């Protein structure tokens, strides 16, 4: 009988020494194999992650979150993982939500399940951040025609088969929309699950600024034109 420990969790991390230890420990105590992709950090992220029990992959250069996710997913596939979860390193996700995603994935035989803070809870979110994310949801819905409530949540769970079918090229933050595009193009069976996102001063400081979203939009547009 399979259980939730069959889920491998990919955590892309760039200079996250403050939070990575706790994130990895919590995931490990739930029995997950944790794959931290150190995206060229200059601090002790890799060391702390390894001490906390993660398998650590290191990028020689900083590529961006999208690039780190691709590396982590590629590794999981090569190591024959069955379920692959993506999880942010800044401590904004709760480890116990992985189980909730997994139960939905298995019981509904979905290809991929996505966490939604707007179905669940977004603790400590500011009004401006809520507005920004809702705008992103609106535009993503227009483009990908997926009926989603939260398009930029780092917590996702997919089967290895679906992960193998994704072609991801966006190295930066535009990967979130790219994954949704792929769900739409490949016609994957998807579902959204309520999760809790904790906004701490730390996660806010590590998050994307509103201004950066314009850059992401440009990246995404060029990426779509070049397809």
């Amino acid at each position, binding site marked *: 009988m399979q259980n939730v420990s069959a889920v491998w969790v990919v955590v892309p991390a760039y200079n996250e020494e403050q939070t990575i230890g706790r994130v990895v420990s919590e995931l490990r105590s739930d029995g997950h194999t944790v*794959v931290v992709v150190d995206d060229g950090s200059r601090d002790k992220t890799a060391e702390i992650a390894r001490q906390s029990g993660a398998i650590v992959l290191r990028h020689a250069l900083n590529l961006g979150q999208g690039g780190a996710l691709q590396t982590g997913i590629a590794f999981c596939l090569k190591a*024959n993982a069955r379920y692959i979860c993506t999880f942010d390193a800044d401590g904004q996700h709760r480890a116990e939500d992985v189980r909730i995603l997994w139960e939905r994935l298995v019981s509904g035989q979905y290809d991929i399940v996505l966490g939604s803070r707007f179905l669940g809870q977004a603790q400590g979110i500011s009004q401006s951040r809520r507005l920004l994310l809702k705008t992103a949801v609106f535009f993503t819905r227009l483009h990908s025609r997926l009926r989603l409530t939260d398009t930029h949540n780092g917590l996702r769970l997919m089967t290895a088969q679906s992960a193998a079918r994704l072609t991801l090229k966006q190295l930066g933050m535009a990967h979130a929309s790219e994954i949704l595009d792929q769900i739409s193009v490949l016609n994957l069976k998807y579902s959204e699950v309520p999760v809790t996102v904790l906004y701490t001063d730390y996660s806010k400081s590590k998050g994307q600024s509103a201004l950066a979203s314009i850059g992401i939009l440009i990246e995404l547009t060029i990426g779509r034109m070049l397809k």
Partner: protein
Amino acid sequence: MLIQIVLTLVFLSLLLKIVQMHSVGVSFKAVSIILLLAAIYVVLFPEIINRVARIAGVGRGADLMFYLCMAVGVYLLTLLYLRLKDTELRMARLVQHIAVERAIAELPAIHDGSERRDQ
């Protein structure tokens, strides 16, 4: 005129360089030589540009050159941008490949992924 002599010398030296180059393809060489010869011709007989401009419906030859330069400039910039993006992606794939291969090599044994790996 001085400018004609200077430009002709510049184009001629470029021509010589390209003819001597071994590392470039034949088609690149041919196109470059034709363009440089045309440039030298235009420098020596600038009236030709005015005539071409009138045929194209542009007032002066200098204006036509300006428009052409703009078009070529944008084209080259786009090409360069695409090349840069491609190089960036190739570099990323290399970095990713190294990271994955190293980690796979460090794994103690191949396992089926259904169980958690012991430390």
